[in-house]
C-alpha cells in the first residue's frame, strides 16, 4: 500500500515520540490478557507508521505526518473501547481454557488423597466425605458447562452469537467463582479430616492442598478480571 518503499518517518525521532506517546496511552487503556494487548499495540504501531508514510507521501514532514496519522487513528480511549468486546472474549476464553486444563489435575490430586488415605489404606472414610463429594459434584455441574460455554462462544460460534464476548466473560467468571467455592470446600474438608477423622495421607494431602491453594488464588483473580472485562462493555 502507500507505505511501500517509504522509510523516512521511521528514522525521525520526533515522529517516533508522537507515535510512542499515542501507543503508550492506548496500552494504558487496554484491558485483557497481556499477550492480546501487546498484539493490538504492535498491530496499531504498524498501522500508524503506514499512515505516517501515507501522509508523508502527500507532502507532510515526518513529525507532522505522524501527528496526522495519530489524529486519523483517533482518541486512544475510543480506540481502546472498540477493542473491549474482543478483549473480553479473549479474557473469557483464556480463563475458560485455563480452568478446563487445570481442573482435571486438581481433581486427580484430591482423588489421590482419598485413595491414599482411605481406599488403599483399608480405612473407613468419614461420613462427611459424602457431603464434600456432593458439594464438589455441584461445583463441577456449574463450573464445567460454564467453562465450556466461555470457550465455545469466544470462538467460531461467535458468528451466531453476537453477544459472545459478554457471555464468554460472564460464563468464565461463573466457572472461576465455582472453582473458588470448590477449592474452599476441599480445603475445609482436608482440615476437618485432619481434626476429626484421624488425618489424611500427607504427601498426597499436601500436594492436593497446594494445587487447590494455587488455583484458588488464580481463579479468584481470574473471576475479578472477567467481571471487570464484562463491566467494561456496558
Amino acid at each position, binding site marked *: *500500500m*502507500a507505505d511501500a518503499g517509504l*522509510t523516512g518517518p*521511521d528514522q525521525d525521532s520526533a515522529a517516533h515520540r508522537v507515535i510512542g506517546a499515542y501507543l503508550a496511552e492506548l496500552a494504558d487503556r487496554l484491558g485483557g490478557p497481556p499477550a492480546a494487548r501487546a*498484539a*493490538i499495540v*504492535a*498491530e*496499531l*504501531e*504498524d*498501522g*500508524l*507508521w*503506514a*499512515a505516517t508514510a*501515507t501522509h508523508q507521501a502527500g507532502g507532510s514532514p515526518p513529525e507532522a505526518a505522524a501527528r496526522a496519522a495519530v489524529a*486519523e*487513528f*483517533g482518541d486512544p480511549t*475510543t*480506540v*481502546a*473501547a*472498540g*477493542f473491549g*468486546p*474482543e478483549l473480553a*472474549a479473549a479474557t473469557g476464553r483464556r480463563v475458560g481454557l485455563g480452568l478446563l486444563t487445570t481442573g482435571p489435575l486438581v481433581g486427580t490430586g484430591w482423588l489421590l488423597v482419598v485413595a491414599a488415605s482411605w481406599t488403599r489404606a483399608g480405612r473407613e472414610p468419614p461420613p462427611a466425605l459424602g457431603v464434600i463429594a456432593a458439594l464438589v459434584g455441584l461445583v463441577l455441574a456449574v463450573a464445567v458447562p460454564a467453562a465450556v460455554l466461555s470457550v465455545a462462544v*469466544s*470462538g*467460531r460460534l*461467535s*458468528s451466531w452469537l453476537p453477544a459472545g464476548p459478554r457471555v464468554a466473560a460472564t460464563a468464565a467468571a461463573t466457572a472461576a467463582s465455582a472453582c473458588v467455592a470448590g477449592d474452599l470446600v476441599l480445603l475445609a474438608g482436608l482440615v476437618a479430616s485432619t481434626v476429626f477423622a484421624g488425618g489424611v495421607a500427607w504427601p498426597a494431602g499436601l500436594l492436593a492442598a497446594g494445587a487447590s491453594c494455587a488455583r484458588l488464588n488464580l481463579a479468584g483473580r481470574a473471576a475479578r478480571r472477567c467481571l471487570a472485562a464484562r463491566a467494561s462493555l456496558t
Partner: protein
Amino acid sequence: MRAEVLKGHLDGLLLAALEAGPLHGYAVMETLRAGSGGRVDLPTGTVYPALHRLERAGLIRSRWSSEGGRRRRSYELTAAGSRALAGERSSWREFSATVSTLLEGRPWPTPA
C-alpha cells in the same frame, strides 16, 4: 459516510476489501476509502476490532510478518469468509432492489 450508517454492512465491506488478497489493517481502511471515493472512512476503533472479530468467527485469518523491522499483521479470507461474502452480496442485492423499488414508486417486477 459514518460507521453507524454502515452498521449491518461492515462485515461484508471488510470481507470484500480482502477479496483481492491479504491486507494489513490500515491497508483495509485505505482500500475502503479509495474504493468509495473517500465516502467510506471508517475509524480505527471500528475496523481493527471488527477484523479481530471476523478472525475469531473463522471468516478471515491473520499472519504476522516483519516489515521494515516492525511486526505486521495481515489478514486474508478463509473459505468460510468467501462463502459469507457471497451471502452478503446476495442479501445486499435483494435488499437494495426492494428498497429502490419502494423508494422510486415502481411496481414490483413480476415474472413474465
